[in-house]
């Protein structure tokens, strides 16, 4: 396991840009393929926006932890991202699947962010631990042959 990034942000939407710029920097150092980087950025953007917008019932300042590390070797390397927040219990895996086949008039935007995350990541794991939401995302790195 190789730790790549570990940071804490406050529950302010403006903080997301800071997370993204750190991820971009890490991506070029590792380096990650453009597709993997975009999948991670989009997933973090969607999940952090959800946490910050809907996760808190008070007006206090809260900390959200974002950790990113690499696991595995050679042909099976993964990027793991872990988000920990002390917001209201929210398990994105329990969210109802969005119906993608609805016509324009009935199409709903709710749940689309989570849907994107589920499709872009290879694995998601949720756990409620000591009044905190712990969400772990796993994304397989492409081998050089595939990319």
């Amino acid at each position, binding site marked *: 396991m190789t730790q790549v990034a570990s940071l804490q942000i406050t529950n302010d939407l403006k903080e*997301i840009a800071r997370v993204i710029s750190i991820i971009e920097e890490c991506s070029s150092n590792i380096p990650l393929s453009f*597709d993997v980087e975009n999948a991670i950025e989009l997933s973090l953007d969607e999940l952090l926006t959800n946490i910050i917008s809907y996760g808190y019932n008070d007006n206090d300042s809260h900390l959200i932890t974002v950790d990113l590390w690499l696991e595995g070797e050679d042909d099976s390397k993964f990027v793991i991202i872990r988000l920990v927040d002390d917001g209201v219990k929210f398990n994105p895996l329990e969210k109802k699947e969005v119906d993608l086949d609805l016509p324009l008039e009935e199409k709903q935007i709710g749940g689309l962010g989570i849907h994107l995350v589920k499709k872009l990541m290879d694995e998601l794991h949720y756990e409620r631990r000591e009044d905190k939401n712990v969400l772990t995302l796993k994304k397989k790195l492409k081998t050089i042959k595939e990319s």
Partner: protein
Amino acid sequence: MEINANKRGEITFLSLKGKLDSVTSPNLEDKLLRLIDDDNYNFIIDCAELDYISSAGLRVLLVGAKKVKAKDGKIKLANLKRHIKEVFEIAGFTAIFELYDTTEAAEASFGS
């Protein structure tokens, strides 16, 4: 995010440059809704320089598409980068938006 608009005939062209995320999407929403209020119902959005889209950006496009449809108009998109197109596909948006490789092709499709 940079948004440029100009009108040619019955079609309003919007070009987007940069990121369409939760911070920048309200700008596009304001612009789009104002144009619709001013009786513009047919749009071509040029995404050649759009680098990123999140569900917040998709939401604005959906709101716009619903509004123009009520007036028999359409929002068509052109020049989507591969990774943006992938997000459209995952979101099921390729079924509700016509996507074209060029703005010219999108424009020609309005004529037919």
